[in-house]
């Protein structure tokens, strides 16, 4: 209608199957129903989403909550606020080649791990090391761009890589590897770093000036996420519609991976999709503050707002692979 509010929305990365909910919502007019005109742009990293929203270039985006914690510590009045926590589980993981002889995390000592600078996996490694009683000095870190991690791992330049499992798993697939058979995965969640990760964040400005739009945005995304959980093919249709360059087959698997490994969890089943548990968040903030050596620990309320979530009964997500 005439009163449509335009929202500039940035993704966490280039078009991926795991973003299907946003394209689905757009294609099925969910945003329109809420009186929103959402413009979706591709992103340059789930951490950069925070910068983009903070600077005012974007009103909302899909990005990493840990980057919000980091910024909220310094500039609580400027940092964006997470309003819908889609990825309930952390994708942070260390992947190693089985032939490298790493069988437990203790074996990291004396080996080289490849990290992409600034990614939470790389940044939180010291916490991982401390929490698990490893000797940090014995682990060598080599920096490289994210898309070089898997090739260098395969080539044997590094013994393990600090990655997002949802990215790395499919990078290995695309590199004609079998990520389950030939590689070992050490998920941070399993080693005491029970963090939250990506979700929908909005700018403080939008929050203050147009809370109705925020609520509408969350409602639409929620509806789409639940719909795509039932029908991934429809989700992929919307995604290809947005960007015909993607490898639809792989992206569908990525989409399913996101539901299976990152969204659906016991906690989600308990509190519904999009919400968090404050005590878990407090712990997560503690980990981030430790890992990033932040001066101040923000409160969960500074980072996450459940004010705009639809009622609990509208947030029951049932995933069925198809």
């Amino acid at each position, binding site marked *: 209608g005439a009163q449509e509010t335009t929202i*500039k929305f940035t993704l966490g990365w280039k078009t991926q199957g795991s973003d299907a909910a946003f394209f689905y919502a757009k294609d099925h007019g969910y945003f329109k129903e809420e009186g929103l005109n959402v413009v979706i742009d*591709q992103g340059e990293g789930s951490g950069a989403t925070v910068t983009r929203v903070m600077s005012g270039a974007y009103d909302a985006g899909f990005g990493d909550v840990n980057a919000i914690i980091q910024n909220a510590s310094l500039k609580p009045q400027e940092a964006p606020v997470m309003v819908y926590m889609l990825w309930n589980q952390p994708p942070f993981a260390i992947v190693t080649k089985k032939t490298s002889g790493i069988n437990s995390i203790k074996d990291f000592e004396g080996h080289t791990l490849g990290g992409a600078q600034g990614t939470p996996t790389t940044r939180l490694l010291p916490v991982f090391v401390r929490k698990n009683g490893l000797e940090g000095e014995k682990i060598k870190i080599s920096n490289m761009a994210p898309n070089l991690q898997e090739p260098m791992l395969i080539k044997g330049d590094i013994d393990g890589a600090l990655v997002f499992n949802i990215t790395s798993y499919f*990078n290995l697939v*695309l590199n004609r590897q079998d990520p389950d058979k030939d590689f070992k995965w050490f998920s941070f969640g399993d080693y005491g770093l029970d963090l939250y990760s990506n979700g929908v964040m909005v700018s403080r400005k939008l929050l203050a000036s147009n809370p109705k739009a925020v609520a509408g945005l969350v409602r639409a995304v929620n509806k789409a996420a639940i719909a795509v959980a039932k029908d991934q093919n429809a989700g992929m249709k919307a995604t290809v519609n947005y*960007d015909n*360059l993607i490898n639809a087959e792989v992206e569908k698997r990525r989409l399913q991976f996101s539901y299976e490994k990152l969204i659906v969890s016991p906690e989600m089943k308990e509190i519904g999709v999009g919400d968090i548990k404050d005590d878990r968040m407090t712990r997560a903030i503690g980990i981030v503050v430790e890992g990033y050596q932040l001066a101040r620990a923000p409160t969960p309320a500074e980072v996450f707002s459940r004010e705009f979530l639809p009622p609990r009964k509208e947030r029951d997500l049932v995933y069925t692979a198809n």
Partner: protein
Amino acid sequence: MSLLDLRQKAWSAALIVLFFVAWELFCLMTGMSDLILPRPSQIFTTLIEKLPILWPHILQTLATTMLGFVLGVGLGVALGAVIGVSKTAYDTCYPLLVGFSSIPKVAVVPIFVLWFGSGTVPAVLTALSICFFPIVVNIATGLATTEPELEDVLKALGASKFDILWNVGLPRTMPFFFASLKVAVSYAFVGAVLSETVASNRGIGNVMMTASSNFNVPLVFAGLFVLAGLGVALYAIFSLIEGQVTGWATRKNDLIAT
């Protein structure tokens, strides 16, 4: 001469083909994985296959590049003229410009994006900001090294500074202006694509980024080939103009050919 010319062109074409054949053979012999360096034949196949999808992206990149390039040439000529003529401008601008161009534009693109949003505007600005410096340098040097004897011809007539610039400085500088265009146009592509990889939903840069995050290396290289092809096409156009405009400066080659 025309026969000699033809033979020469044939030679050059053969050498260029040879380059690609060597590449193909190199990959085949070393068993190079196409995830690292695909064979030219694979790249061309991918290119032809994906051309319909690539087409709008090619147009987008070409348009932003050309816009940035044209603005860059304008800015470059203007700044070059100022620097070439005024000693103060030389001392002031050169350090600033060298400093600015020592900065990787990747670091600047996000700033453009934050100011102007993602898409065409930052791509144009990046193309501009990366391509104008070679032009500045060559125009400025050309003007500063113009033989005073040539300028005296006009000075004795009481010509204004602008008359001298227009009638002596700039024509004299043309060969080096065209030389710098060759550099500038290829860097303009680099700039536009760079910006597209950072922030845009369209353009070759975006395609390459998507392809690269999908490890579709042949498609990445197809994108690179498109860029190289566009660069060469524009170079060819400038070469034609250059032949018309700067023939006087390369008369040596004519004499040899005679």
